[in-house]
């Protein structure tokens, strides 16, 4: 495959890959955290019927 890139192009591509990879990691981590908190909140709500509660 022939890719016509000058030196600036290679640098730009490398930084784009880096930004997408680390940005994706941050978004994924925060999304998982939000889901985990929501799951605990849901269970906590359900368990209040039994008079128990777990801190989040």
């Amino acid at each position, binding site marked *: 495959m022939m890719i016509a890139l000058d030196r600036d192009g290679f640098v730009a591509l*490398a930084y784009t890959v880096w930004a997408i990879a680390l940005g994706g*990691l*941050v978004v994924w981590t925060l999304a998982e955290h939000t889901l*985990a908190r929501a799951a605990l909140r*849901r269970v906590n709500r359900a*368990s209040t019927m039994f008079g128990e509660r*777990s801190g989040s």
Partner: protein
Amino acid sequence: MLTRYANPQRFLGLAGPTAWALGALAVVFIGLGISQGWAAPPEQDQGVTARILYIHVPSAWMSMAVYVVMAAASLVWVVWRHSLADLAAKAAAPLGAVFALITLISGSLWGRPTWGTWWVWDGRLTSMLVLLLIYLGYIALRAALEESPQAPMAGAILCLFGLANLPIVKFSVDWWSTLHQPASVLRLGGPTLATEYLVPLLYSFVGHGALFGCLLLIRMQSELLRLRARRLGEAHG
């Protein structure tokens, strides 16, 4: 002290503010490293391509440092059976895998204009690929065993065996003839890199390290919250 902070409840209380502080530190230091690095004059042989240094090298160092953290946590689990240590190893693996992937891709994008090739099967590049495969193997193993009681021990054994690859990654450029340049920062006799490139590189490394710490703490928190929700759910059927 280890036992004091290894209490899950105390950990949850401390992890939140620490993660925010590390996140802020990461933004500041990565910003400083890249802005100062780009402000430095282009390198005389490689020109602007050398700017890939500020993301490639910190990612490479982090991919190895994360593995050391995983191996230390696995060892703590094997010796003391502390669940937070296993949680740390499990949470760190995807972060290390992403750092290794960034290293390989940015290295390839640096190698093409510098060496005239995207890839060579030499010691440094191949051992870094093996490191990525070990990370992926660990993640796959943990995903396959899921909630099995054998999962932490199986993960720890794989991780500790994989540790043998780290010296190969580090010293491959000294042991074998390779296109990859020899160590220019972490070497006996001190760094050979000019200060105007070295300082931004170190800033960027500190920033990448802080980002890892921030994400690790958040991922461990998430895993603890998920476990707590599951146990509470099971308790109430």
